[in-house]
């Protein structure tokens, strides 16, 4: 499956209420999220940089930076500390991003 790079370039926030088994659903940051304990987020910018954040050990969000690139349906995240991981995109359309766990 080919994912449209432009469709990925948004500030995505984890909509855990919509998760199915083996999948995580993300919506744009502007989505009307109900209140929740901490949500993970991934901001994929057009210039190829990203910021990700997630709740930390005391519930403050923690964030990290890096660069991203897209290869087919695989989103590769290269963090500033040198670590690398790949997310498999199941769907990226409009206001919905689905990632396989």
């Amino acid at each position, binding site marked *: 499956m080919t994912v449209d790079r432009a469709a990925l370039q948004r500030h995505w926030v984890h909509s855990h209420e919509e998760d199915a088994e083996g999948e995580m659903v993300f919506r744009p940051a502007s989505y009307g999220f109900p*209140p*929740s*304990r901490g949500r993970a987020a991934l901001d994929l910018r057009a210039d190829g940089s990203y910021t990700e954040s*997630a709740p930390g*050990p*005391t519930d403050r969000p923690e964030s990290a930076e890096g660069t991203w690139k897209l290869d087919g349906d695989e989103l590769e995240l290269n963090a500033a*500390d040198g670590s690398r991981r790949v997310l498999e995109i199941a769907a990226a359309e409009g206001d919905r991003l689905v990632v396989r766990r």
Partner: protein
Amino acid sequence: MSPAPKRRQCGTQQAHERLCEMYPAFRARQNGIEQGIRRSIQSGQAQRVTRQLITIPVVVHVVYKRDPENISDAQVKSQIDALNRDYRANNSDTSTVPDVWKGFVTDPNIQFALATKDPKGKATTGITRTKTTRDSFGTGDSVKRATTGGSAAWPRDRYLNLWVCNLGDGLLGYAQFPGGPAATDGVVILYTAFGTMGAVQSPFDLGRTATHEVGHWLNLIHIWGDRNDCGGTDYVTDTPNAQLPNYGKPKFPHISCNNGPNGDMFMDYMDYVDDAAMVMFTAGQVARMNATLAGPRKKVGR
């Protein structure tokens, strides 16, 4: 099991080392505190602390811009009451704990009371009210300083500081572990997630956000171990190994990390479920809290 560095992922498969690197000072303090906890539990000192009830004086700093944020005395008291139920395992919803874990529910033997004397020894209600021009507060501790529109902490050797305000960015609360700076020691809670009446909003309307955050203040770790794989640890042996936080109101059992048949202990206060779904501490968590009250927080309430 080797103590894995604690850091939180963005819900993806692989470890993200940089998050760990962001907290080297925290990790160093935690290593010292973890060693102290092990000595305290092994020597029996932590258990001696449980034989006496400890009542912790609390100061609630209400910081408000708009009227609804200036929560009532009654709403404040409802939060103290909720903490007092939860920290004596007196909450009626322990009945919802699955049978297999009912014997794990443990009474922490800790109580809370609004302070009656302020740091200078003068009579107080234990509630301070500060009007601010700030629309909301972040996690940079601006609510804890008068110069940034907040209210200064009372000495943490004598009080638990609870700040209540309009916390922004969709957050419900955050805490500071023992071993951090005194000026920012305590817990911050969103005013609509504080207490059990008044401005509270479902599903965070049973006072459990404070129960969870005060758990961190007493050095409890998230039950999934702060990693999104099976390698994290909460340093407690009677909670199952779990991969991820649970949200909402999960159905029992929820399996992860080969922890079947009973799965994640998502009904524990240190998961991320809704207020009605978190109802217990385990004996191992109580031992950690006792070690904290015998160690880095040995003066408060004594």
